[in-house]
């Protein structure tokens, strides 16, 4: 393969306890630690491993958003991406528009493989990869737990509800990554220094010919109903009694 394109999203860090804004318009992001979406980190790691195996010559990371996303692109470069593309967008785009942007980038970059996380842990939509594959009229392999590339074909093992499904797709293709595909590497300090010198290009939505369209209105961020804390029973016998009394067993 010549090139792998990896989409990365800036999200609230996995370990942060998300807080709602009092006016229900969203979640608190001020002063909150932001990171690469963990699934995208796995996608990037997989791209790097394919390159290190000599199966790809270049890994390009792309992110869409305000100037802040350059922080995550620098992290991607420090992990080992060869170069980065920042597509400027001040407003958050819906998945279909993200897919349209990625399509425009793919048409310019002509990657053999586009690797994306299976979902972002903020909106939990899980749509972008499949939408990109549809618009690009190319194969998709979602929820990948193993990727093998041979020539112009990728064999992908997918984590599905029943177990593991293996499919074969012709390249170029879109593959979205599941948790167990790999364990991303840690970034070392010298790599962070080196990453500062790697190319990071900026493009506008207009340059890519994408005019975002708001198709959905998301409102009223409210807390989910909470469960009441129950009782602590003293031993297994008391537990079985309690469950029998409630007719649960």
């Amino acid at each position, binding site marked *: 393969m010549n090139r792998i394109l990896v989409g990365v999203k800036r999200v609230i860090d996995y370990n942060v306890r998300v807080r709602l804004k009092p006016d229900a318009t969203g979640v608190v992001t001020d002063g909150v630690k932001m990171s690469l979406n963990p699934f995208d980190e796995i996608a990037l790691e997989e791209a790097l491993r394919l390159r290190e195996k000599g199966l790809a010559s270049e890994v390009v990371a792309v992110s869409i958003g305000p100037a802040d996303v350059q922080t995550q692109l620098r992290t991607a470069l420090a992990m080992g991406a060869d170069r980065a593309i920042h597509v400027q967008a001040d407003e958050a785009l819906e998945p279909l528009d993200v897919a349209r942007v990625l399509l425009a980038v793919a048409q310019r970059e002509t990657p053999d493989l586009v690797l994306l996380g299976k979902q972002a842990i903020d909106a939990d939509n899980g749509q972008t990869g499949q939408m990109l594959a549809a618009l690009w009229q190319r194969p998709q392999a979602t929820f990948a737990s193993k990727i093998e590339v041979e020539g112009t074909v990728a064999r992908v093992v997918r984590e599905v509800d029943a177990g593991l499904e293996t499919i074969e797709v012709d390249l170029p293709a879109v593959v979205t990554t599941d948790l167990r595909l790999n364990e991303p590497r840690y970034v070392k300090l010298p790599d962070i220094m080196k990453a500062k010198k790697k190319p990071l290009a900026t493009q506008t939505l207009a340059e890519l010919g994408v005019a975002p369209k708001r198709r959905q209105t998301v409102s009223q961020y409210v807390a989910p109903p909470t*469960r009441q804390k129950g009782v602590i029973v003293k031993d297994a016998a008391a537990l079985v009694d309690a469950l029998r009394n409630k007719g649960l067993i």
Partner: protein
Amino acid sequence: MGRLLVIAEHDNRRLSGVTAKCVQCASTVPDAEIHVVVVGSGAAAVADEAARLTGVAGVTLVDAPAFANPLAAALAPAVAELAAGASHVFGPSTTFGRDLMPRIAALLDVGQVSDIMAVEAERRFRRPVYAGNAIVTVTVDDAGPVVGTVRIASYTAAPLADAAAPVTTATVAAATPGHTRFIALSAPGGDRPDLQSAARVVSGGRALGSAENFRMIQEIADALGAAVGASRAAVDAGYAPNELQVGQTGKIIAPELYIAIGISGAIQHLTGIKDARTIVAINKDADAPIFEVADYGLVGDLFTILPELKTLLAKA
């Protein structure tokens, strides 16, 4: 009145139980006429099953060898063709639906509402975000069909009706792409109840310590006629296969009884179980977050408790 399509999940022999839950969700959409779409190969029995669900006005069967396996690249163009003029296109938020539905949405040039947990109006829904830490209201402003996936844990199954709805067969013009090929499905399954539809689930976590010890979870599950689940930590450690994972990135379930054994209760795991009717936690750490949501908690060493529990359950 709008025509609402529910895309059936099946294995060409049986209709998956999740489809009845999608139909139940669909029946809460005002003024919707529900049509189940079965795309498969030799799947007539599946269509007949779907026709007996309460609320279904009709079933459309698209039957061709090209649809023998549920490949999104093959199914999406077929469904998109049938969706012309539809008001809604719903599928389950399972790996089948999550793979397929966004591809359909893009072909229809519309957005998608993922994980619908409540229908508020014809084009207004509630869904979880941030691993279920927030619930949002989504209003669809698009003019086209509303494409959505149904959060299965939020719905009961539509009951069987006395009379069956008519089944019609349809053919589609869309060509099946040759660029995606099914190779194999490894589905160990077995005789235990299905995790996603079981009334009782017993799950084990990292504290089990080994795949061998994880068999204790299976024994408790068997004693209760329950399905087996696992935390992400247990799956990552290789104690249990991936299809047993319960949580934000695994399966979201809503059994009558959920027993978490040696699971601390990371937020991502709790996301997968908070619709369970009754939660039981067994853990040696009294401060484990799982106890915050458990109806019954038992603090102690699981290697002492599980053998006791097994003996007690055997004495029916």
